């Protein structure tokens, strides 16, 4: 019954989305204005229904109901409960239902709380949200139904890919999806504002918290995903330029640009058309990412299944949504009036520069991700990796980070560099000094640039606080400072990993001692261990840092039996100044075991930096919401006073 109930809820939600679209569109015409009243409630109920449908699927997975095809194909009764539940979205259909649920819930959230937009823009926004949702409902119901029953229940499930049986999986896709799909709100806002031609500071202030919210989740999702790949794949890397990673990076780049341009629009009423365009681009990148991943057109760890029919369906949706939005933009862009002017050396100028550089990086990632498809259609099989992405991306990232150090110190509208030259002298000296030092240490070009920029940016990002009373600094400024400082921290981790990692690859007998960087590692024994659905060979390592206290590490090679597969469980020892990373390989002749060890100085800074960046977003979000709330309360008070005086 649960499956049928979930399916019915899903169909109902789709019907309500259709109603939301039609009512919202008609309400914008003079004769249909009365319909406007039902749009918000419909949007809210739609969100609840799709959440109910998702909950039904989670319940089916938790109970391992093997009469449902999806459960039988992806779950197993012996799996621990946490992986039964996270298995809900560890497959194509379930992850698309998660996608649609986030979309429905963010639509209903907007309908429930957003009161700052003019009513027609609000209606157009909700209609836009319904339009996009409807396409994905159709996709889910017509080609990826998660609730299909088997004609006779399976005896046992096929299990979940062991790579995905890790707490990381449970935590990283949901925030990623909230971020990814949360950007649909920005998309719908942009559509709504284009339809009603209401692009201005008020629109930007209303849109900003939604963009910020999605961006925070996206940042956390990418950070968590990167860490998950780092320790689960056992390759010692934290970013592989895998198409799926790129698919999450591209919306993040667009959303980061949007976040900054929407601030210009809110504060200075400039960059109107550009901001709307970025709103369209950001969610378009989410959809492109979904297409790349879910169509199976590119191979990656994350691609679930190859199905050309699904690919063409998503491609059609993509063309309809992005093409429609771009046509609307083309029709209306000329009527979006020009914003305020500013000189090149100003806060706006720096933000424009940052936006253009972010867009260029986005373009480079997009081209590099799509190139293998293009090449294949021409008959050549190629893959594109770090030798392309790292240097080409850096060409635009380096100037962007330089301007990022200076931009927050500039005034709005017009400023001169000579006013702030004393302030930027310190980071500039640090930049050159670190570069010279790195050159003397024969560090590679890119890591050296990274270290130098990180040092300069760490200082420069704090400068906006200089000479201010810290208790009076507003939350959004704290947010900016925290996020920019977080970039410096993450950059330190990335550059340090590239510059200073030491690696040992050896075959050792129990008792042998290996040195890697400042660590001494002794293999004590290899022993078999068993888990709920796997057995493993586990290495017991005794490790000590610079001859200090001995701790144990347990890298293992696990063998799963449902489905039959093997994974390498890396073992990590984290210190404040880096991480020791150990992987157990295979048995070599003479009773030896392969052991791969890395000492990675400061590598955890990558993820601490990511968390700081997200925290900065959170501070800014709270600051904005608090001041909006204050404004609302003040407005109500005035209205109340007026009403009393009038009486």
């Amino acid at each position, binding site marked *: 019954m649960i499956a049928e109930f979930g399916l019915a809820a899903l169909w109902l939600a789709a019907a309500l989305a259709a109603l939301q679209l039609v009512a919202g569109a008609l309400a914008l015409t003079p004769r249909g204005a009365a319909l406007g009243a039902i749009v918000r409630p419909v949007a809210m109920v739609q969100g609840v229904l799709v959440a109910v449908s998702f909950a039904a699927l989670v319940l089916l997975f938790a109970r391992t109901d093997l009469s449902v095809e999806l459960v039988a194909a992806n779950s197993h009764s012996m799996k621990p409960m946490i992986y039964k539940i996270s298995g809900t979205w560890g497959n194509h259909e379930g992850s698309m239902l998660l996608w649609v649920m986030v979309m429905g819930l963010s639509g209903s959230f907007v309908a429930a709380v957003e009161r700052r937009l003019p009513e027609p823009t609000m209606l157009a926004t909700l209609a836009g949200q319904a339009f996009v949702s409807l396409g994905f409902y159709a996709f889910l119901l017509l080609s990826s139904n998660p609730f299909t029953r088997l004609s006779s229940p399976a005896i046992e499930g096929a299990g979940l890919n062991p790579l995905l049986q890790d707490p990381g999986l449970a935590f990283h896709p949901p925030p990623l999806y909230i971020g990814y799909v949360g950007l649909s709100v920005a998309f719908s806002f942009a559509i709504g504002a284009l339809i009603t031609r209401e692009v201005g500071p008020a629109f930007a202030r209303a849109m900003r918290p939604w963009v910020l919210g999605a961006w925070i989740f996206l940042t956390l999702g990418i950070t968590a995903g990167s860490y998950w790949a780092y320790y689960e794949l056992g390759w010692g890397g934290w970013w592989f330029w895998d198409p799926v990673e790129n698919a999450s990076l591209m919306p993040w780049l667009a959303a980061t640009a949007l976040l900054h341009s929407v601030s210009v629009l809110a504060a200075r009423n400039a960059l109107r058309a550009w901001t709307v365009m970025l709103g369209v681009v950001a969610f378009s990148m989410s959809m492109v990412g979904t297409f790349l991943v879910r169509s199976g057109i590119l191979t990656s760890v994350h*691609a679930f299944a190859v199905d050309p029919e699904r690919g063409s369906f998503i491609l059609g949706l993509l063309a309809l949504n992005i093409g429609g939005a771009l046509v609307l933009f083309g029709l209306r862009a000329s009527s979006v009036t020009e914003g305020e002017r500013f000189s090149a050396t100003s806060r706006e100028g720096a933000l424009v520069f940052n936006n253009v550089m972010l867009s*260029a990086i986005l*373009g480079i990632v997009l*081209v590099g991700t799509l190139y293998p498809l293009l090449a294949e259609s021409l008959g050549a*099989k190629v893959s594109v990796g770090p030798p392309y992405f790292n240097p080409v991306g850096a060409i635009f990232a380096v100037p962007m980070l330089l301007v990022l150090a200076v931009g927050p110190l500039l005034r709005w509208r*017009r400023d001169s560099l000579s006013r702030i030259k004393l302030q930027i002298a310190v980071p500039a000296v640090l930049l050159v000094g670190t570069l010279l030092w790195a050159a003397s240490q024969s560090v590679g070009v890119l890591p050296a640039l990274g270290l130098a920029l990180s040092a300069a940016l760490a200082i420069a990002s704090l400068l906006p606080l200089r000479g201010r009373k810290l208790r009076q600094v507003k939350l959004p400024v704290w947010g900016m400072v925290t996020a920019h400082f977080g970039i410096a921290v993450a950059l330190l981790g990335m550059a340090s990993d590239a510059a200073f990692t030491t690696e040992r690859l050896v075959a050792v007998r129990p008792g042998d001692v290996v040195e890697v960087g400042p660590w001494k590692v002794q293999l004590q024994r290899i022993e078999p261990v068993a888990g709920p659905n796997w057995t493993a060979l586990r290495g017991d390592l005794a490790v000590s840092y610079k001859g200090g206290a001995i701790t144990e590490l347990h890298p293992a090679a696990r063998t799963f039996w449902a489905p039959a597969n093997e994974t390498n469980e890396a073992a990590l020892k984290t210190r404040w100044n880096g991480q020791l990373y150990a992987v157990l390989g295979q048995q070599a002749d*003479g009773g030896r075991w*392969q052991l791969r060890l890395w000492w990675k100085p400061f590598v955890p800074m990558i993820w601490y930096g990511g968390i700081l960046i997200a925290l900065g977003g959170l501070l800014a979000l709270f600051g904005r919401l608090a001041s909006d709330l204050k404004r609302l309360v003040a407005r109500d008070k005035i209205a109340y006073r007026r009403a009393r005086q009038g009486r």
Partner: protein
Amino acid sequence: MTITPMKAKHQRLVLALIALVALIGAGVLAAWALRSQASFFYLPADYAANPPEAGRAVRLGGMVEKGSIKTAADGVTISFVIHDDKARVPVTFRGIVPDLFVEGSGAVAEGRRQPDGTFRADNVLAKHDENYVPREMKDMTTEQARQAIEETK
């Protein structure tokens, strides 16, 4: 550095132009870099007939020849032969191979051709599981390999 405030129309135009130039620049740069940095996929037959220049990152995919995997004395360097029905390429690799890397099954080696014609792999991928097969290996039956060679000619 201060630019005198321009007329509104002009500023918009200049901004649009700058953005356009930067994006086109990025596109051109990307195209140029891709030509030199994309790593091409080779079947053993292609590799033998038309070897990639030494030192260039490429990928080599085929079957691991039966009886060809040999481990060196250090216990972590292995050599093996990747072959199809037309050619065989000796490969060396220092590292931990995936568990599913076995003789007689498909594998993709990422690395560079050495001046002596052998292939030094930086990374070896094996058929991982049903859901993650390196793209080129899905059609790695002999018949399809032959077709792929036909196509790439």
